[in-house]
């Protein structure tokens, strides 16, 4: 069975691009437009093997989402990658503090993203 990735981003073009790349690499993709939608999908029974989330989003931002996911028993250990444009370490620290597994710094190319996913995707 293919591995499932939950992609959370408010930007449609980013979601399209990430989903396209992931689907092309054989992953199943579930999309959400913001943190709230992602939480709804997870509560609704989605069981992703990995979550990729943007940080800047309306309704519920990425950091709050990461915290929320870590508070859900079934997803406590699910790897979470955050997409960030911040080259500064502050945001990465904040994300790690919230429980993020890793990050992908924008701009990235699809190959970089897949390599990072491979890095944290449970075998």
């Amino acid at each position, binding site marked *: 069975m293919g591995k499932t990735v939950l992609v959370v981003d*408010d*930007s*449609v*073009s*980013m979601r*399209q*691009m990430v989903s*396209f*790349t992931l689907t*092309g*690499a054989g992953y199943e993709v579930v999309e959400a437009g913001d943190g709230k939608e992602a939480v709804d999908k997870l509560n609704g029974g989605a069981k992703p093997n990995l979550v990729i989330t943007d940080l*800047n989003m*309306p309704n519920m931002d990425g950091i709050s989402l990461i915290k929320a996911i*870590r508070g859900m028993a079934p997803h*406590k*250990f*699910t*790897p*979470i990658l955050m*997409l960030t*444009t911040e*080259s*500064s370490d502050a945001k*990465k*620290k904040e994300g*790690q503090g919230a*429980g*993020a*597994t*890793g*990050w992908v*710094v*924008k*701009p*990235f*190319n*699809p*190959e970089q993203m*897949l390599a990072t996913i491979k*890095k*944290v*995707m*449970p*075998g």
Partner: protein
Amino acid sequence: MAVDLSQFQESFFTESAEHVETMETGFLELEERPEDLDLLNRIFRAAHSIKGNAGMFNFAEIAGLTHKMENVLDLMRNEEIPVTPHSVDVLLRSLDGLKSLLDAAQGAGEADQEIIQGLEKELQACQDGERGSEVSAAPSSAEETVAPQTAIWRLIKIDWIPLPELFQRGLDPAQLFKELHELGMIKDLQVQVDKIPSLEAMDPEVCYLSWKLELETDVSVDKVEAVFDFVRDGSELTITDCAPKQAEPYKRVGDILVEEGVVTPGEISDGLAKQKPLGEILVEEKKATPEQVDKALQKQKQQKKGEVASIRVDTEKIDKLINLVGELVITQSMLTDLGEKFTIDQLPVLQERIVQLERNTRELQERVMSIRMMPIGSAFHRFPRLVRDLSGKSGKQIQLVMSGEETELDKTLIEAIGDPLTHLVRNSADHGLEGPEERVAAGKPERGTVRLHAFHDGGNICIAVEDDGRGLNRDRILAKAIERGLIADGKTMSDDEIYQLIFRAGFSTAETITDVSGRGVGMDVVKRNIEGLGGSVSVQSTPGKGSKLTLKLPLTLAIIDGMTVRVGEDNYIIPLLTVTESIRPKSSDLQRIVGKGEVVNLRGEWVPLVRLYEVFNVTPEYTDPMQALLVIVEVENRRLAVLVDELTGQQQVVIKTLEQNYRKVEGVSGATILGDGQVALILDVPGLAKLARAEHTVAA
């Protein structure tokens, strides 16, 4: 895996356009409420999204400029620098620069690099000037250079005590080792278990293990370090690089030649300078002319312009559509079932199912049409900025009030009304509203108001542009019309008739040509454009109180209200909007005038008569207008009497173009299929009038 990102560029552009809009309205609001943090955050998020996505799609210039804007916005929202009229102005102009970059990226024109660089400097000044001489923020990642990689076999010693909450962050040490293994050979791996507590004290979610290992690899230490990127914080990690073996770096042919003393570096760069674009070489060799090459280059540029028109649709709308299609399928299968073993006593059931089918189809049609519907707000967004600029230039104080932005209409129409609306708003601001002194003298508030209001009216949408200015000047319009020879002197006219004169070609009352309006594109063009869309323009005005121009448009271009008429055995559709009345004339009303053909007297006005059967060469039931019927149509202030056998009804028709399937036919704008399966031609009334005129000129 190579992925072509260009396929997502279109979404990027759509999205960016939305963000630009958010920023634009945001900046304008910011001028009024510089303290509003929510607003600043919203603008910041828009800028941030454009920057991030532009980087993804390799639009470095767009990312660069937005990055600078974002920096300024960031300092503003952190209250490190104040929001000043100057900084908002710089931001607004930067936004214009950003728009030009976005346009250029889509192949429409080129952005002026000097302007962009100027803007970036100004933004930098906003950022620094008010924050003191702090060094500017971290250089953008593009500037960071990476040392050339050279292949070195080395032994790397790694000593890693992971952070205890490793698992709680979704990390897995096994993954790390797998990754290291891909980089080279892992030798001498030792697990240290001494930190594991007794079973009672152990927290199963905490990592107590640590590792020591040696890796033999040909990759750089950086790559090995990168493996630990996500676990470095909180871990104790030592990576030691031992015994590297140097390998030769990759050399280019020029480097080798220089090293061997064959050529000097200067000769290499001279040689490189001689490398020419293909076009130039072809021209030199007389294989192509410079014009041909230029043309080809133009063509190459234009390729990028071939953008796909797309529409964003709410998933909700699509879900409903899918539901409906589902119902349609059910109805269809019920009908099939019924058809297989049909007996006449089941007729009521059949009829019931057909009614159901009809309902499904109608609903489906409505829903599909609604996909093309967009809120008109997107056509309104440009106006706050326009009005702001206008008030700046003219010294008038203008406030713009918009309402009904959520009113939906066809996307094509939204695009088409942009320019006419701009013209009307400009007119109101420029000609309609008075200067502050004049307003105060007239007992009005100093600040003039332009109102933009959209609303549904039956099957139409109305957009009103209203101002509280001086109103139309009856006498001046009249004088101008006489001067321009549009009407005869001494003719008595009602106020309304006089106001209508502003729509006549060659009419413009602006005595001084200002920067904003009065540049020759007059109201007649607005009227023509709107009528071209199947709509109409009307004007109301009260001297001293203001004027109001109302555009009335059909909701969509694909469906029109039509009057079905019959000529002989053929059916035709006349757009209902053009029909004013139908009459059966008396013989005394009919005349034949040399050079004008047949005319009919309509309450004192001679209206040209068109025999539809002659135009389309069919056999009618009646050729005598007194037995047949005359449909009076009006378009562009011109009336025409169309001779038909009979009016058969009135219905909504879906327009199918002829051009796509056949070719353009004069006097016909399209065709449609009637309820009984017959094809009916839809008459193009202006075309018909032209056709009639041409014939008579020839005949004369």
